[in-house]
């Protein structure tokens, strides 16, 4: 009797999972598996050519004849790592500031959220406007402070473009860092601060020995999340520079996209994505292991 009721109750559960299950099977699992299969073929121009199985040729090409690949991989790492660390350090400072007791804290907290909830398409266009060489306010300020003689072409100059996109990428993840760290800071028990202050600890000591250890877990988690997010992200670079000037700011996502939809090398592009997937899964496992240790 009990067994029967249990079965009956689960049936409704299965029914309720069907729509989500269909969506995930069709739009996530199938493309994922198909993508892995494509990576072993020379799949190219859509529907016109016979598809051949080429084994590991795409993977071998990636690490041997493709001279761009390794530098793209390197820049993707640097972009994700530096922008995430930058966003974390600045985010922590802003979170500490917003954690102080003051009127209008809620308003300030809302306002720093803006970059996160605004479309990257909008953000990229307005960064281009700020950084414009003729009318941009940033060049104008730098020139009137006599820091530079000529306007800088931030997104066109080979020395400047990488730092510029790293800073913009950090700017995009900054609100996330602030909000998560702020939530963690507000969870630190107040009496710990009080007893530390009673024992005569100074502000730096309180920060170093009470605040930092209490937010360690959350910090680690949001650094990991933002690293993976930046590593994967396509829109920022695609909209700001399109990978240019030349190939200078190509990231793996942008490079894969171009390989697939501009050069029509779908098989090769899939192989690049599979390598990205392996890197990301390794990171996810690392994250899980480290968070379990906490």
């Amino acid at each position: 009797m009990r067994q029967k009721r249990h079965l009956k109750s689960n049936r409704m559960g299965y029914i309720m999972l069907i729509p989500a299950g269909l969506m995930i099977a069709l739009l996530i699992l199938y493309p994922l598996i198909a993508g892995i299969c494509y990576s072993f073929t020379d799949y190219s121009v859509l529907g016109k050519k016979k598809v051949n199985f080429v084994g590991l040729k795409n993977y071998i090409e990636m690490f041997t004849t493709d001279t761009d690949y390794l530098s793209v991989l390197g820049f993707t790492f640097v972009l994700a790592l530096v922008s995430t660390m930058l966003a974390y350090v600045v985010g922590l400072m802003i979170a500490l500031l917003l954690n102080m007791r003051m009127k209008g804290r809620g308003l300030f907290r809302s306002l720093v959220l803006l970059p996160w909830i605004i479309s990257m398409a909008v953000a990229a266009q307005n960064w281009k406007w700020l950084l414009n060489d003729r009318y941009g306010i940033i060049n104008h300020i730098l020139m009137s402070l006599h820091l530079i003689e000529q306007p800088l072409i931030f997104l066109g100059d080979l020395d400047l473009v990488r730092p510029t996109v790293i800073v913009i990428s950090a700017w995009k993840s900054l609100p996330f860092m602030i909000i998560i760290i702020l939530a963690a800071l507000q969870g630190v028990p107040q009496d710990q601060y009080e007893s530390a202050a009673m024992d005569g600890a100074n502000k730096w000591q309180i920060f170093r020995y009470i605040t930092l250890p209490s937010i360690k877990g959350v910090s680690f988690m949001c650094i990991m999340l933002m690293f993976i997010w930046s590593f994967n992200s396509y829109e920022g670079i695609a909209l700001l520079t399109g990978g240019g000037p030349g190939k200078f700011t190509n990231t793996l996502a942008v490079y894969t996209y171009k390989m697939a939809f501009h050069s029509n090398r779908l098989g090769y592009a899939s192989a690049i994505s599979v390598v990205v997937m392996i890197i990301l899964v390794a990171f996810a496992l690392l994250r899980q292991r480290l968070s379990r240790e906490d």
Partner: protein
Amino acid sequence: MYYAKHVKWPPFRARKAASMTLMYILTIVVVFAVDLPIISMIATAFKSEESITSSVSLFPTASEFTFENFLTVLSEPEFRTAMWNSAVIAICTAAATVVIASMAGYALSRFRGNVFVIFGALLIITQAFPSMLRLIPMFRMYVDAGLMNTRLAVVLCHIAQSLAFCIMMIHGFYDASVPKDMEEAAMVDGCGQFGTYLRIALPVSMPGITTIAIYSFLDSWNEYMYANLFLRDDALQTLTLYVSSFTGKSGVEWGMLSASSTLASLPAMAFLLFAQKYLIQGMTDGAVKG
């Protein structure tokens, strides 16, 4: 004792006032710096095209101030089409995501068995995979199914993109805030399982539903990559495509660009004003579970 306290008080207060002022100034400067691109976007939108290219300043002067850009943009048929497309796509995405995620989340929260455990694990694992890998077979699939250049193609991608997160989020909500005895009482009263979900669990978890609705709406409204790949027809372009089409050509109309960007950001800003707690809830939950 009282005397000493009385003497010490005023300087302390003055010092505190000074440090408070400093803190406010610092906070305002920081917030201003973080929001600079958005402030500049809104300020530029109120400047005429001529004054934008004749003088460099962040804010328009009283004589430069104009609504001209907004009026021009709003009268552009292309802009209106883009706004309509964005709205249709985002509303359909949000509606479908809410229905699908709230059912799946309920199933994961209330039923026990291997299927549910595997499903939950699958949701988390697929989150870590790069969307680029899925994009190529998806493109192929849409070509075969004749879904290229349809809004449905983009809606499906957007649902798939936010579904896992929304299921996990609403799952947590059902676990935490829907009282089980209330459901049991409804069950005893002959409500049936689906009836219990509809009449008890859904109304009680309205804040959770609101959060996933806002999340999936904004995610879809702001999205660029899928829209750019699957909507090649100008009549189907979304606001993100419209806004990004300004800079490719020579002689960028910065005033129009700023005005359309500002209008495109209105839903996000409105949610920030009126539903801030849902946005923040979504972010923090995403970090904990994602």
